[in-house]
């Protein structure tokens, strides 16, 4: 099946600006693009005036409930949500049951992704066996099976000794350790970021310093071992400063953040709204602004959905008892585009944070429009708007912290290897 996209805008890779033109897909691959292409016979023609065609988004961090927590999200329901959000590749966390710490499970998840026909699943494997934080997982075998990096998911690798070992051992395979940056002791039992709000709401609190302390320690350990280290969902000004300096030093340090941390602050927890209970917690406004600055100046390497599916029983509890985590697949593009609309980020930079940059970090052939590449595409209209509504999101998980938020940027269609999977 051949497709010719006409009257669309796309980002020219070198010029970093929007060009009006056409893009041709042949045999599932990007065949050509330019100001004007002839339509081959029998090609489906898609005209979308005003719409932007970009590479399918590459979400470098999402949890899916499969295997073990399918009541929250299964691979097929996540694939639906992803397609509706313009996402064609997802790196998935190993916090499943069983934990992804065995090569067979890595194969299983990759295959489950392929079965959907709409997403590529790239599994992270556990950094420590069973995510127990005691002993290293089999990095070599897991990597060979297709694991993209090693992480304990939503749990920090707490022990300094073990973190040193992990970074050191992984470096032998050229593999990266992904850390949930939070001092486990300081964060224990916490439900909100420390400050007047948590104090007056009577909520157990996590100081912002819990993030910086972990980041400072791990940067030092990366330096000691020469290992590659990635910090997931950075949320504080102080941690970003540490990462900025480490990068200047030339250390192999990268980081990402997620839409809630540059779009919302602690006030979103309002009247004990458990959908806004996240891990790490939403921070104060100054930290949110620092995250925006980190996106601007390139300290932050990617924007991930940080999708954490939860069902009603996980969330319809008192705030301290509710499970942290927010659904993020369907809103990843829209909330990021809000930073473009308000002038914080140029469009090219925002899209790169969702496509080329995470793809490069993952080391995959995706995230850029290039001839010969698989036609993983997302067509969206940047000026059409929609309203986020918990209860009517695509996929299973409805626990969005953005409930009620109006967003500009409607996904009109998503294609995986040239096959339309949404719209």
């Amino acid at each position: 099946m051949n497709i010719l996209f006409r009257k669309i805008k796309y980002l020219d890779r070198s010029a970093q600006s929007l060009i009006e033109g056409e893009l041709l897909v042949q045999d599932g691959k990007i065949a050509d693009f330019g100001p004007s292409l002839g339509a081959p016979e029998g090609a489906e023609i898609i005209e979308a005036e005003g719409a932007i065609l970009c590479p399918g988004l590459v979400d470098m961090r999402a949890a899916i409930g499969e295997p073990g927590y399918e009541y929250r999200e299964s691979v097929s329901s996540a694939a639906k949500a992803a397609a509706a959000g313009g996402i064609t590749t997802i790196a998935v966390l190993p916090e499943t049951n069983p934990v992804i710490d065995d090569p067979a499970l890595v194969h299983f998840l990759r295959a489950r992704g392929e079965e959907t026909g709409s997403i590529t699943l790239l599994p992270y494997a556990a950094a420590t066996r069973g995510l127990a934080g005691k002993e290293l997982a089999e990095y070599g075998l897991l990597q060979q099976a297709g694991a993209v990096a090693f992480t304990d998911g939503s749990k920090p690798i707490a022990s300094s000794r073990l973190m040193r070992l992990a970074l050191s051992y992984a470096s032998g395979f050229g593999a990266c350790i992904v850390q949930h940056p939070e001092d486990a002791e300081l964060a224990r039992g916490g439900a909100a970021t420390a400050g007047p709000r948590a104090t007056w709401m009577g909520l157990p609190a996590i100081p912002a310093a819990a993030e910086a302390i972990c980041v400072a320690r791990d940067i030092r350990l990366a330096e000691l071992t020469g290992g590659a280290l990635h910090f997931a969902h950075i949320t504080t000004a102080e941690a970003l400063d540490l990462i900025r300096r480490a990068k200047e030093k030339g250390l192999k340090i990268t980081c990402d953040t997620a839409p809630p941390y540059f779009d919302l602050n602690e006030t979103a927890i309002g009247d004990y709204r458990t959908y806004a209970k996240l891990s790490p917690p939403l921070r104060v406004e100054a930290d949110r602004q620092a995250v925006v600055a980190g996106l601007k100046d390139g300290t932050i390497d990617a924007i991930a959905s940080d999708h954490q599916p939860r069902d009603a029983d996980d969330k319809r509890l008192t705030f301290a008892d509710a499970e942290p985590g927010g659904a993020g697949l369907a809103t990843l593009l829209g909330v990021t585009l809000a930073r473009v609309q308000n002038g914080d980020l140029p469009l090219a930079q925002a899209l790169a944070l969702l496509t080329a940059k995470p793809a490069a970090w993952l080391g995959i052939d995706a995230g850029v429009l290039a001839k010969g590449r698989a036609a993983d595409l997302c067509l969206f209209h940047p000026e059409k708007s929609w309203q986020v509504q918990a209860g009517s999101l695509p996929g299973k998980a409805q626990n969005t912290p953005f409930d009620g938020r109006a967003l500009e940027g409607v996904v009109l269609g998503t294609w995986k290897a040239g096959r339309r999977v949404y719209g």
Partner: protein
Amino acid sequence: MASMKHLLGIEGLNPASVTNLLDLAESYALLNRSGKTQRDSLRGRTLINLFFEDSTRTRTSFELAGRRLGADVVNMSVATSSVTKGETLLDTAATLNAMNCDLLVVRHKSSGAPALLAQKVGASVINAGDGTHEHPTQALLDALTIRRNKGRISGLTVAICGDIAHSRVARSNILLLTMMGNFVRLIGPPTLLPGAIAVNGVEIFHNMEDGLKGADIVMMLRLQKERMTGGLVPSPREFFTYYGLDRKKLACAKPDALVMHPGPMNRGVEIDSEVADDATRSLIKEQVEMGVAVRMAVLETCARSNQ
């Protein structure tokens, strides 16, 4: 009287509504003393005391208040051990809705539990203490007790001492006292006194003698035993030495300063018996008496707003 469907906290009240509640409570206090205790303004109404945490005195106080107004009172105590998941909380809410309960008095270990229930039930929800968030009827009864003894509830210096960090009583009192125009001093060791709690009109002290200087009211808080085992203070005797109220420390306050405690007291930990039992200085018994009157006022006001 302003409309007040729920009483979830002092936050959300204004000085006028506090004064109205205190005036109504004062009239009930006088009636209670005169022995004319029985009224029928809540006849035919159902009050459920839903306590997820043990509390004999608060529950009894609400029960008595409800009965004196003619309500049918049901006590539901849900042992904390069996409540590990909050589904129980919402399941209970569904059950209570089906019973057509009018007034729901809730105590829960988690901050925000009454707010969650208020979204799900038709009844008026009255917060009888939620986690480390608020305990509004305690602050109201403290205010009434102070007003009766000092003749006013503004322009006073009130020292609140002890475990501020984990105290819902402290939060509600700080909100109420500052809203009514008093000066609040918070006294305690830094591990039990979060700096973030300081708002306008609030001063923080780590030295009790300094904090008590010029105080009209000394309000002591209960120190939970688990705070000691949790390592926030090293030992009861060290705590008592620096933050326990005895005659010597009380002498730093104004000569006519009065002592309060929400109970139950840990004698010898936060308060010396000699002070607690001194009828000329201690308002502790009157606090309990005012508790019933204040809860009558709150129940009646909420019931009227939710007809």
